[in-house]
Structures are given as C-alpha cells and as structure tokens.
C-alpha cells in the first residue's frame, strides 16, 4: 500500500530537500516506485538538487488546477526509472494550493507509487501545512542546534493536531532525522548529542546523517547523495534510514568518511 511521507522541519536550511532527494533515491534504488513532490511553491529547488531543472514543463499547481495531467507533469529520473519528481511552480504563490486539489493529486499518485515523498517548505504556513496534511508518516529533519530543535518541536505539535490523521483521532507516525551531526564536536560538548535531541523531542530516531562535504558535492552535481556517492558517509546513512522507513531493523551507527592521516591533518583546511 502506498505511503505518503512528509519531510518537514519548520526551520529552513536544515536539509529537507537534500533528505527528500536522498531518501527518495534510496527507496527507489531498493526497487520501490517513488515520487518526490516539491511543495515549496515560488521557491522550488528539488528539481535542481535532483538534476532535472531543465526538464520542468508543468508543475504541481498546473495539476492541482487541472491545467495539466499528472502524467505530463511527472519527470522521470534519468538514473532510476522508478523515481519521479513532481516540481513546484516557480511563478505562482502558495495560495494556489487548494486542499481538495492536493488531496486529489495525492489520491491519484497513491495508485501509481509505493512512496509519495512530500518535500515541505520551511515555516508553518500554507505550503508546509499542505505538505503534511495528508501524510501517513513524517520525517522531522533536525540539526543539533537550538533553533532547529525548537522549530522541530513546534512542527511535531502541528503534526499531532493539524494533519488529517490527527483530526480523525489517528496518530501520525513520526521519525527524527538528525542531520549535519558532528560526533567529534558532540563528544567535546560543543554540540547537542543525539541523546539530548531525542530526549527533548521524544520521537523515535530514523537516522543520523553526519556533516559531510559529500552533501554539497552531490547538490553541485544535481544528484541525490545516495546516487552520487552511495558509499560516502551521508550516502550510507541515508540508505540505512530508508531501510528503517521500510520497517527493517538496522543497527544505528554514525558512518564516517574514510580519511587518511594526511587527509585528516590537511583535508579540512583545504575544503
């Protein structure tokens, strides 16, 4: 049965789009049919991160308003044939997203895909509420940093009150994805630890993505980090998170990029 998954955070810049693309590609790599939808109307970027920016013709708003068919707006990934993208509109504003329209598009997508990943915009306004509205599962992307944790707490509150599931008395499945984590700094007491964030937010952990140069490298290339460099630390961490989303039990480790001693000594400075 198809699952609608929202990738959300409240705060901007914590890695929602990176995570949507990476998890989408990881799930598709495992054989599932996946579509990733950009809900950031007016500031779309998922197309760029996934390397499809030159192939956008129609978008989510066109489909919501009936100006284009779903099949016309869906962009199939060039690397993985079972991965698709539904881009956001760059010219319209978020009010064009009607609840009924979004519900209808998601209903159609549920028939074609196993996973429908909704990449939420930052904030708690219409785009963000529409992205979470019909979700079955939520991945809350959080950085180990005070403002991100606070905003995640707020978003968890909204997931428990403003989603369709919550209004029907159901509980939405929520998972924490801790991104940009630096185990060495956490160990030195310079960064909130995994346990700190877990204790404060009290939702189960789906993965820890270590801070890594590979993430920027992948977005430069227009490729999800799980495809651009699957064996990199963030690549492996996202693959593990995707397996946990599918219900597998995967031991929780924080992968690290392999570095030679010389690389350790000089690598950071050069970056």
């Amino acid at each position, binding site marked *: 049965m198809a699952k609608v998954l929202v990738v959300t955070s409240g705060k901007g810049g914590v890695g929602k789009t990176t995570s949507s693309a990476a998890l989408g590609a990881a799930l598709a790599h495992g054989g599932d049919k996946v579509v990733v939808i950009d809900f950031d109307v007016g500031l779309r970027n998922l197309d760029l991160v996934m390397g499809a920016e030159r192939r956008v013709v129609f978008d989510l708003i066109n489909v919501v308003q009936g100006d284009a068919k779903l099949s016309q707006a869906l962009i199939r990934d060039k690397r993985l044939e079972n991965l698709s993208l539904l881009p956001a509109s760059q010219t319209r504003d978020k009010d064009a997203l009607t609840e009924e329209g979004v519900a209808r598009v998601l209903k159609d997508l549920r028939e074609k895909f196993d996973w429908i990943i909704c990449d939420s915009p930052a904030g708690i306004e219409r785009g963000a509420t529409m992205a979470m509205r019909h979700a079955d599962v939520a991945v809350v992307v959080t950085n180990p*940093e*005070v403002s991100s*944790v*606070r905003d995640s*707490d*707020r978003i968890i*509150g909204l997931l428990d009150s403003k989603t369709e599931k919550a209004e029907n008395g159901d509980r939405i499945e929520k998972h924490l994805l801790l991104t940009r984590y630096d185990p060495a700094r*956490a160990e*030195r*007491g*310079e*960064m*909130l*630890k995994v346990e*700190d964030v877990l204790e*404060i937010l009290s939702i189960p952990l789906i993965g820890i993505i270590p801070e890594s140069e590979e993430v920027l490298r992948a977005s430069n290339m227009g490729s999800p980090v799980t495809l651009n460099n699957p064996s990199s630390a963030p690549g492996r961490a996202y693959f593990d998170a995707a397996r946990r989303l599918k219900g597998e039990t995967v031991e929780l480790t924080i992968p690290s990029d392999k570095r030679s001693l010389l690389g350790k000594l000089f690598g950071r400075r050069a970056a």
Partner: protein
Amino acid sequence: MSLMSFFNRRTSAPVARERLQILLAHERGIVGGKPDLVAQLREEILAVVRRHVMVEHQNVQVKMNRDADISTLEIEVEIPGPTPVGAR
C-alpha cells in the same frame, strides 16, 4: 583564544540543552490551551484589588520568571497614597 581561556572553556552543549528544556516546557504549555496566562492573571488580579482600592491599569505589574525547577510569579500593585488634605 588565549591559553587561559582554552583551559577554562566550559562546554556549551549542556547550556543549549538546558535552555531548550525550559523553553519547550513553557511553549508546549501555551499550545496546550493557555494562550496568555500573564495577561489573564493581570486582569483578574486588578479586578480583585479594585474591589477594595482604586488602582489604575498601568499600576499593576505581573512578571513571570521561568526556571528549570521553579517558576516565580511576581505581582506588583502600586496603591495610590492618601489624598493630600489640600486637594479636597
């Protein structure tokens, strides 16, 4: 960074953790249904005091201070002094 400050440096993550715990305990309370506790307290306290003494709205100060273990509510009511004899 001087050598002294390097050795004296206290870790910042525990501070972040404690600040978040206090803040979120409060913010979750707000979402739970008491939108503006301090303003409401101010109005009700003013009403009680006014049954006995006439005080102006601006002369009632209500402050809430939240801490990890205890929170304090500070109420300051400025009561007008006796009317000067000459004023009658």
